[in-house]
């Protein structure tokens, strides 16, 4: 209020205030909080993470990181040396994660599209199905995974009751959470939780397809299958690309599913990357090595995302 009553001497100050309030400055003012937070929570930690990856930062130096010896690319060399124990374990973990991601993303997309098509047509009670199918996704992730952990117990789990006692598919109840089957436990659990996300988005996309496209096609004598291929699939393509990218990133970075199912010592068949890095950092207390692995993961994800976005032009910069 006070600047309104401007005395002659106060002129320059008013001028400076005015410059701050110039319309060009307004968007920057709005961005200040976001930029400050982005710096604090993303940029600084990321740069710091890269710095750590060049240090031999073990438990000894955790309270005073600047004393940790500088080792250059040593951590990266160890991580990428496929002849060494650490490097080969990292490659193994990477490949497991890749297989896991491909299966979960492909399965989620397929289930999501199928269920969305089923619920999209008019029939009584479709609202109930829609709600039911969304529940797995709305549950807190640890609840979903704990539920599966319980179901996958060898002697007290409902899955073995179903497979062995009721359906007689298997003779002896297998261990699902130990050994090679652990990988499939992981895939099933993640798939159960992820597909409703694809379902939700694809269903919304389906409802935006103009109905007269189908009517015109029907007049031309196109079969349902033909309509699906020539109208539905192209129309849900933009949503599908986003769904696949988002699910890829979530699944590839997944920590929750393996950590809750197996704790800090997962079976080798289910040793996903995020958990692998976590164990190397916080259990084996080699933070420098963990940071180097994180940096490698970052580079990989960055390349994949850029290639994917370029190929499919998602992120649609053009409509902004």
């Amino acid at each position: 209020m006070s600047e309104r009553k401007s005395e002659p001497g106060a002129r320059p100050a008013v001028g400076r205030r005015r410059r701050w309030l110039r319309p060009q400055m307004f968007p920057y003012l709005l961005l200040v909080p976001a930029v400050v937070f982005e710096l604090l929570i993303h940029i600084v930690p990321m740069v710091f993470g890269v710095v750590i990856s060049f240090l031999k930062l073990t438990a000894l130096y955790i309270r005073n990181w600047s004393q940790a010896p500088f080792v250059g690319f040593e951590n990266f060399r160890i991580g990428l040396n496929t002849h060494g124990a650490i490097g080969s374990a990292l490659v193994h973990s990477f490949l497991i994660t890749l297989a896991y991601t491909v299966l979960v993303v492909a399965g989620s997309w397929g289930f999501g599209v199928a269920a969305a098509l089923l619920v999209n047509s008019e029939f009584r009670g479709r609202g109930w199905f829609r709600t039911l199918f969304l529940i797995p996704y709305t549950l807190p992730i640890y609840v979903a995974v704990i539920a599966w952990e319980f179901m996958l117990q060898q002697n007290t789990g409902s899955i073995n009751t179903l497979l062995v006692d009721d359906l007689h598919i298997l003779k002896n109840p297998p261990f699902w959470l130990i050994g090679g089957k652990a990988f499939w436990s992981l895939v099933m659990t993640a798939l159960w939780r992820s597909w409703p996300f694809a379902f939700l988005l694809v269903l919304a996309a389906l409802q935006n397809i103009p109905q007269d496209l189908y009517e015109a096609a029907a007049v031309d004598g196109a079969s349902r299958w033909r309509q699906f291929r020539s109208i539905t699939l192209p129309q849900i393509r933009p949503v599908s690309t986003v769904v696949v990218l988002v699910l890829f990133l979530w699944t590839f970075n997944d920590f929750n599913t393996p950590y809750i199912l197996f704790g800090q010592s997962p079976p080798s068949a289910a040793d996903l990357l995020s958990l692998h890095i976590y164990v190397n950092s916080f259990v084996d207390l080699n933070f420098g090595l963990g940071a180097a692995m994180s940096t490698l993961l970052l580079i990989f994800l960055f390349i994949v995302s850029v290639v994917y976005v370029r190929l499919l032009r998602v992120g649609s910069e053009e409509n902004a």
Partner: protein
Amino acid sequence: MREERFYRVLRVIGLAFFTLITAFPLYTVVISSIKPLGDVQSAFHWIPSRITFEPYVQIWSTVPLAHYFINSAIVCVSATVISVIVAILAAYAVSRYRFFGRDPFRLTVLSTQMFPGILFLLPLFIIFVNIDQTFGVHLYGSRVGLIITYLTFSLPLSIWMLVGYFNSIPRELEEAAMVDGSTALGALFRVLIPVSLPGIVAVAVFAFMTAWGEVLFASVLTTNATRTLAIGLRDYASQSNVYWNQLMAAAIVVSIPVVAGFLALQRYLVQGLTAGGVKG
């Protein structure tokens, strides 16, 4: 019309399949939460030998569940509120103004959203420990520290969704208000925010849900006093015993706020998500 019948049969089979795979785990959880302990510790049976609601009473004393509940609520609500407010301002700028640095900002937000939590956890952990050491400020193991780390995923998510949502709202609405003498900020608060409420609700619910389920940061950055539900639920499993019935009961209690919230706001969520998140 043969084809019609074929598709109707296909639909029934398909719906039955998805209903079964969805309901099977839900049934296991619900039925186990009302079984006596002896039942859940022996072979699984579809029908309980005896129905009891004791697990729902016991969960509160076996484990300090209420305490974890409060911790989770404080952390998740704070992270959500902060990210939504900061995101509204930033998204308004990005959506309505052309300015130098706009694209680098958008790109930064988009890319940080893609990075794994483990990438930020490690440096933040070391930064927190060292701040504690140097300045005596307790971020490590405190709720404030946890809230800050939760912003790493809730803030980019909120900004990204809101930019998309604001873009879908015609700018003529605010321009009309500004012609009537409103300032840009006034137009944001009096016109754009009320109109965008569905989108803002969607963003808040997603941010809250993601935080409510968060495990990674909570597993490293909490102590007994600040433990969240995500980690606290582990306490039902002791060395000698797993109280599966109580664990399942607690799982249901913990899920109620988010599942109920999500389902109640479903309409807005789909609207907000498709306008913002997808066409972004």
